[in-house]
């Protein structure tokens, strides 16, 4: 795939000065909107997860005129709801040495020095306000007998800063945001459109001015205009078909904004979560994550011998390899996600994996049950054990769980500046849909933190600075008409093919290809192969896809086909980005770039930058680099040994 290199991105709009003062400075410098003007300013928010739901609610509270859209039947279904483990905050309620600076430090290091210091510091600062906000809303976090909030240590952190609500933290936080949103709907500040899917962005006179959406019940194509558009449409992990994402998660909103001019940053950064339930067969439609809090008490192992077919209980202690404890003695089972995932892949590649197809490792609670008692283990993990048993039919109190890595989160996304504004003025991108805070690897319990930081606290301030110059007047009719024509054309083309293969069968094949060639381990050869195969498969898709029904009705096949079409284009850009970034960093492991122990080897001299891709025409995409500078956290090779 061809590409060219364009000018570097030099200004990210982050204020100068000491890192701890930058957000304060930006807030003070942001123009304010006269309260009387706010209700004349229209803002569209796409998606109602933690980021979109909290943003729409907060913008409504501030008095803006908000329209919120989601593809589900109610905003409460957004996939943030499935997050299990918890949310980080630098409260230091334990007095165990945590601080804003330490959360900042851990996040920059955990992101393998590919995130911006200014953004991450702000995230750590705002984290404390999120917990206050959620508690005030009635989010029932776990508490201790003294009535204070409980915390746990999570996902590679050595302090206890993760707040949680049993294994349903995402659900409880999302319901908090959803309730705040419903309150604004009742107040009339937010107009809610459920079962609507964004299919294009309207850009007029250089500004994002609205969206084209499809009413998924009637099929009607609608235009909605505004002074600013906020995308909070989540990640694109479903490009792999099998992932822990909800079935409906897709890239369409951000991809079509990318086609309209928004740069796409670091598309190859995907997070493979180490503790998921392994694939059980060809029909598999999604993968289920088991919270990594399980690694606090569960021990990960495989048999020492290859192809050992004995039942786990028959394998004596000395013939087990607790490989994480062996290779990483100081972090043991709590190493970050990318490291735990690759280690699992390595032992399975050696032929020591367990379960069907040898694609699994044990997560064993025997020792925890002996040490703490079954009741204590049940109290901590009961709902997770039940979920595991429901899916696999095996009881983890008696038999160790089998787990395997699965695609979980995408650190890449639309490029945004410090204000969370994309390269299209008036288009803001928040939550997983942007690329900003996690670098090349996201730490556990940081996604909820970022989504809510963006939605409750950052965006509502920075968008005001943009909107202060508005309202921006009438929108050019031609721009709206063009966007609508593009949408209708695409739908007509999909219906016209009338081939023999379902959208899902193409999606499954694309996903397999991405997992094999652009998954946990990438090589120049595998990526080149993918870049050859994707256009071939895409060509077949456009010649042979079968979309039943019509455009003027509830048509789930048509919805799916449109999303798969965009996944093809995104997949190609992901592979190109992975090919160009010939270093290993975080979740992006290039086999050519590893040290003597097989650990990821960064190349800071050539790759300490963000790769922001501009959508190109004939000559392919254009790469713009944003150099990353580390004034506070010195760049070092990560070591968890």
């Amino acid at each position: 795939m061809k590409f060219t290199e364009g000018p570097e991105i030099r200004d990210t709009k982050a204020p100068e000065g000491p890192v701890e003062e930058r957000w304060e400075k930006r807030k003070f410098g942001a123009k304010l909107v006269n309260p009387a003007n706010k209700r004349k300013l229209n803002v569209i928010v796409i998606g109602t997860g933690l980021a979109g739901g909290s943003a729409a609610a907060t913008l409504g509270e501030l008095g803006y005129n908000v329209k919120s859209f989601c593809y589900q039947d109610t905003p409460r279904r957004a996939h943030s709801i499935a997050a299990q483990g918890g949310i980080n905050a630098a409260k230091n309620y334990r007095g165990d040495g945590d601080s804003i600076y330490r959360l900042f430090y851990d996040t920059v290091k955990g992101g393998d020095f590919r995130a911006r210091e200014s953004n991450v510091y702000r995230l750590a600062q705002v984290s404390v306000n999120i917990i206050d906000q959620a508690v005030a809303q009635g989010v029932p976090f776990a508490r201790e007998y003294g009535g204070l909030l409980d915390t746990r240590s999570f996902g590679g952190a050595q302090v206890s800063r993760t707040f949680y609500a049993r294994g349903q933290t995402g659900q409880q936080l999302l319901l908090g945001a959803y309730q705040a949103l419903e309150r604004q709907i009742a107040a009339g500040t937010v107009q809610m459109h459920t079962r609507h899917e964004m299919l294009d962005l309207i850009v007029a006179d250089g500004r994002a001015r609205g969206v084209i959406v499809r009413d998924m019940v009637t099929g009607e194509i609608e235009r909605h205009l505004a002074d600013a558009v906020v995308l909070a449409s989540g990640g694109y992990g479903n490009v792999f078909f099998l992932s822990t994402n909800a079935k409906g998660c897709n890239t369409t909103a951000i991809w079509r904004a990318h086609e309209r001019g928004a740069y796409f940053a670091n598309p190859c950064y995907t997070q493979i979560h180490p503790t998921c339930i392994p694939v059980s067969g060809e029909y598999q439609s999604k993968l289920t994550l088991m919270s990594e809090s399980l690694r606090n008490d569960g021990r990960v192992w495989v048999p020492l011998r290859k192809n050992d077919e004995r039942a786990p209980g028959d394998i004596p202690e000395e013939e087990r390899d607790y490989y994480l404890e062996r290779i990483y003695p100081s972090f043991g089972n709590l190493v970050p996600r990318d490291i735990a995932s690759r280690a699992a892949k390595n032992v399975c590649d050696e032929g020591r994996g367990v379960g069907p197809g040898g694609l699994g490792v044990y997560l064993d609670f025997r020792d925890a049950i002996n040490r703490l008692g079954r009741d204590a283990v049940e109290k901590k993990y009961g709902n997770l054990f039940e979920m595991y048993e429901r899916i696999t039919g095996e009881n983890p109190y008696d038999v160790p769980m089998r787990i395997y890595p699965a695609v979980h989160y995408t650190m890449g996304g639309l490029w945004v500046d410090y204000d969370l504004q994309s390269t299209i003025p008036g288009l803001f991108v928040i939550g997983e849909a942007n690329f900003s805070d996690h670098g090349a690897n996201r730490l556990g319990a940081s996604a909820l933190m970022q989504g809510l930081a963006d939605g409750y606290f950052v965006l509502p301030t920075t968008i005001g600075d943009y909107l202060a110059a508005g309202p921006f007047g009438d929108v050019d009719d031609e721009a709206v008409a063009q966007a609508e024509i593009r949408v209708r054309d695409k739908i007509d083309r999909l219906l016209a093919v009338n081939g023999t293969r379902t959208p899902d069968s193409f999606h499954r094949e694309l996903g397999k290809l991405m997992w094999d060639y652009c998954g946990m381990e990438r090589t120049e050869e595998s990526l080149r192969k993918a870049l050859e195969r994707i256009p071939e498969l895409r060509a077949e898709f456009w010649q042979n896809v079968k979309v039943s029904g019509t455009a003027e009705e509830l048509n789930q096949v048509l919805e799916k086909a449109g999303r798969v079409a965009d996944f093809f284009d995104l997949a190609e850009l992901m592979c190109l980005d992975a090919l160009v970034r010939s270093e290993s960093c975080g979740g992006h492991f290039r086999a050519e770039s590893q040290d003597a122990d097989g650990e990821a080897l960064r190349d800071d001299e050539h790759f300490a930058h963000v790769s922001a891709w501009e959508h190109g025409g004939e000559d392919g995409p254009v790469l713009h680099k944003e150099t990353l500078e580390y004034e506070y956290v010195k760049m070092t090779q990560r070591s968890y040994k």
Partner: protein
Amino acid sequence: MNLTLRVWRQSGPSDAGRMVTYKVEDVSPDMSFLEMLDVLNERLIVEGDDPIAFDHDCREGICGMCGMVINGVAHGEQRATTTCQLHMRHFEDGAEITIEPWRAAPFPVVKDLVVDRSAFDRIIQAGGFVSVPAGSAPDAHSVPVRKEDADAAFDAATCIGCGACVAACPNGSASLFTAAKITHLSLLPQGQPERLSRAKAMVDQMDSEGFGGCTNTGECTAVCPKGIPLDTIAQMNSDYLKANAK
């Protein structure tokens, strides 16, 4: 496994609808119920038929989007399990399975097994929240909460809003759904200032949506995938009475 499915097909709100029979072969016991329907739908699409429309999203039992009446039971006979978490190993080879949408007047059918549950959102809009704008919250530790209260609030707060309680209730009552939210917030200190006005507004909204009254049959809690306890309804009634006595 080979199965015979009898599935409710209805092209839209104005269509009368009918049961249609399908054979599904080579079903793996490790499949989820929805994966079994995926397999059937893939076949229907290729054959040029209209696939069966059903709502689903997370497929891990937490988003609340899926829901079907399976052999007469909301979410099927497996207790504390959403449709997406139900697996085929719980069915016999050769079984005949009937699949219908939630049936309740306030949940009109959109298509096939898809129903409109927006009445639930309107009940929350009426008062299912604490009025606290972003940025106005005091420090999280400024108000301790007894662990017992926090745990009980959590138990009520786990409701996923799927609507099985309504589908199972002979009166089509939404009492369990409404009571879960009222109980969650009324057990916490943060929920006290609006406690009575919330209960009144939510119950009145529930009634105006056309849901039936509660006669304590307990079918709701029996099918609830999250096991929301029936005594939340007592809590709701108590708050509602107090609100009306004022």
